């Protein structure tokens, strides 16, 4: 009998359907991986199971008991513990205290007002034993915020284990870890096998296939496939939907433009040197170097959590770098505020679209209109609407009334309206239907040909090799590889290592 049963789980956020009628079974003591592209609804599903969100429809059963309406903290006491995608600890507390707090929550009432915790020796003993289990015995008295990123992830895991769970949910436990750290965590998870059921959300396919007993693939809020690693590996649908290209050896069907032209040369429009950035104590970028030549179409590739979004955020000034330089058109911009960077002609189509919900579509487009590149034939409202005719009918609707795809078009249109010299797109085709995606790429190509420099983050690698001139692959906050499209196309090993299965 399955430990965890998810039946027909549906969740809406406003008008957006994040999860639709999902079924999931996790059996006792198995490692069950949950994979899928960004925005597929993995974290939503995990939050619904752990009780941080309430479902719109459907049920969650644990050990046969319906826990759909049981609050989060009681689910933990019933035996569901979890880690978070973004490290989520008690930052001021030491390793030992972090663990002791988890032990305390499990071992009885929080409503004891008199007896000092310091006299409850077994709390600390148990905490220390968990610390040994996750390999942190040398850091017992270090405050969590002072740990390295990898150690924080280990502690995160330890906190979940300290809850003594029957099912532990690990949301991207190796995100942002070094290779050695990843190995350590993989070993740790493997040691859990047979004792605790593990529901693992993970992008690193190495990790997934090495560890899992079974895999469930989630795409666009639906369960696409579920089964043993072999079954999933062989499922062509999974490849198409998730990996964005056909199986090894098969050719993609012909899809319109296929360009090959000489790489533009000349001075780089954007030059990033030894860029370092961190969120609080955890460093994300460890010295990124990349260049985008004037008129180039360059991609930034890499799996999730490798620092792609942080890199572009640092470029546009939303994150202040810890070190390194960003030079745009001969000028240093790494200390400029975002508006200063933007006014030089850098436009961002951000991940998650970030349309202004309280502005109409027209206003979203017009509010920031400018001719920052001094183009003779600048983008105007009409041109953008010609590019995305679907927006025309929606001009007077508020930004938050659009569908996801329409918001995506709006976000691109909004950036174009500033007539930038450099357009940065962060997952600009996320959540779009294939046809629409293709349309956007064609548009991008055309824009690029007309002289616009583009830096692109996307996951459809094969298609990108056809579109773009040059690629950078980020791996754990560093550029692990760079080269022209031909080189990338020629080396499937690269893809396997850095990008997918």
């Amino acid at each position, binding site marked *: 009998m399955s430990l965890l049963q998810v039946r027909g789980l549906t969740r809406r956020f406003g008008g957006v359907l994040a999860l639709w009628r999902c079924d999931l079974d996790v059996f006792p003591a198995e490692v069950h991986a949950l994979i899928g592209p960004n925005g597929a609804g993995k974290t939503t599903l995990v939050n619904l199971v*752990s*009780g*941080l969100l309430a479902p719109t429809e459907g049920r969650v059963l644990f050990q046969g008991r319906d826990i759909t309406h049981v*609050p*989060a*903290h*009681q689910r*933990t*006491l019933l035996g569901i*513990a*979890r880690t*978070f995608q973004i490290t*989520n*600890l*008690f*930052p*001021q*507390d*030491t390793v030992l*205290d972090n663990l*002791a*707090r*988890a032990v*305390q*929550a*499990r071992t*009885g*009432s*929080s*409503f*004891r*007002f*008199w*007896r*000092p*915790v*310091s006299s*409850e020796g077994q709390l600390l003993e148990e905490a220390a034993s968990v610390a040994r289990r996750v390999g942190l015995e040398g850091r017992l008295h270090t*405050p969590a915020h002072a740990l390295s990123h990898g150690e924080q992830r280990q502690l995160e895991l330890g*906190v979940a284990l*300290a*809850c003594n769970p029957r099912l532990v949910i690990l949301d991207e436990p190796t995100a942002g870890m070094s290779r050695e750290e990843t190995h350590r965590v993989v070993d740790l998870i493997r040691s859990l096998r047979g004792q605790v059921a593990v529901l693992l959300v993970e992008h690193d396919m190495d990790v997934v296939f090495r560890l899992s007993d079974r895999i469930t693939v989630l795409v666009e809020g639906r369960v696409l496939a579920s089964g043993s690693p072999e079954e999933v590996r062989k499922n062509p649908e999974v490849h198409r939907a998730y990996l964005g290209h056909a199986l090894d050896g098969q050719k993609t069907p012909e899809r319109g433009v296929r360009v090959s032209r000489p790489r533009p040369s000349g001075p780089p429009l954007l030059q990033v040197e030894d860029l370092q950035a961190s969120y609080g104590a955890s460093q994300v970028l460890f010295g990124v170097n990349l260049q985008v030549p004037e008129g180039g179409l360059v991609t930034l590739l890499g799996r999730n959590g490798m620092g792609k979004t942080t890199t572009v955020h640092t470029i546009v000034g939303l994150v202040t770098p810890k070190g390194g330089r960003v030079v745009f058109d001969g000028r240093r911009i790494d200390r400029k505020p975002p508006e200063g960077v933007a006014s030089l002609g850098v436009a961002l189509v951000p991940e998650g679209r970030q349309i202004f919900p309280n502005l109409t579509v027209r206003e979203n487009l017009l509010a920031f209109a400018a001719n920052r590149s001094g183009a003779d034939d600048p983008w105007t409202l009409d041109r953008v609407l010609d590019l995305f005719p679907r927006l025309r009918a929606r001009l007077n609707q508020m930004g938050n009334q659009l569908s996801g795809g329409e918001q995506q078009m709006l976000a691109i249109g909004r950036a174009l309206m500033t007539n930038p010299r450099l357009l940065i797109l962060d997952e600009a085709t996320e959540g779009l239907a294939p046809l629409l995606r293709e349309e956007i790429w064609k548009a991008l190509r055309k824009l690029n040909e007309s002289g616009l420099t583009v830096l692109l983050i996307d996951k459809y690698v094969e298609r990108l090799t056809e579109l773009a001139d040059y690629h950078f692959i980020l791996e754990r906050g560093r550029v692990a590889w760079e080269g022209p499209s031909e080189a990338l196309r020629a080396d499937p090993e690269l893809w396997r290592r850095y990008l997918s299965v």
Partner: protein
Amino acid sequence: MRAPNLTLPQRAPTALPRTWSARAGAALAALAVVVFPPVAGALDWPYYLSLATKTLALVLAASALNLVLGYGGMVSFGHATYYGLGAYTVAILAREGVRQAWVVWPTSVLVAALAALAIGAVCLRTRGLYFIMITLAFAQMVYYGVVSFKQYGGQDGLRAPRTEFGFHLGDVELYYLALGLVWVSLWFLWRLVHARFGVALQAVRDNEVRAAAVGYPVYRIQLVAFVISGALTGLAGALMAHHTQYVSPAMLSWPQSGHFMFMVILGGVGRFWAGVLGAVAMTVLEELFHAATVFWQFYVGLALLAVVLLAPRGLAGLWERRR
């Protein structure tokens, strides 16, 4: 320069003095508060005795607020409500002819606790700025509610004769009563913040989502802390009513709530001695500026602005080593 956030202590500070000089200082301070009344009597300083009693009541209220504000991370902008209700209970019971101490004091605490329970139960469903505003809204409701009850004085306030203990409750006796109550309350709070409950409360403050995810009943923990804080604030109100022998709606007003918050910040939010240091420093500051200038509030404001911008760890933070 920008104002840093009000930083919380790295860990629940082990506030019992550890060095010999500090222990000697603490012992001296304890001795000073115990022998203060005879000294004040000998020197004929009735005003300073009365000021000390008032300060003790404020110490209690500020320490109670520090529990929710500092240890619980709940920015309550309506703690004057519990303070005022505690005080009004004394006055109203006296007016209705009930003056036995063993009835009045527990009733005061109970009324404040029940109010905190009802208000907290609703307010704790909101977060952030909305929490601040909704606690304020409830405080205003209670304020205007009390103001409209004409038989209990309305805007004019109400006399609150001291309760009967079976002995004469003069100013000196009241001082010792206040000292005792403050001591017992601080002891209770000390145990509480170091017991499981205090640890859980701070866990919720530090990371609510994480706390829930390891199994803490966040809402209940916050509500219980809110009620305890409300009850102790009510006790402070009852004490203040005994001190002034008069209660007025100003005790329930929002500037009063702001005043308490100020004391806690001044003392060092989230440090155990914040309430004590803040209330004493505030009283000293006010007396000092009051003696020096008619426009004393201007300088109080300036001092507080300086504290907020320059010393966000408050007075208690001065003793902590710089990071």
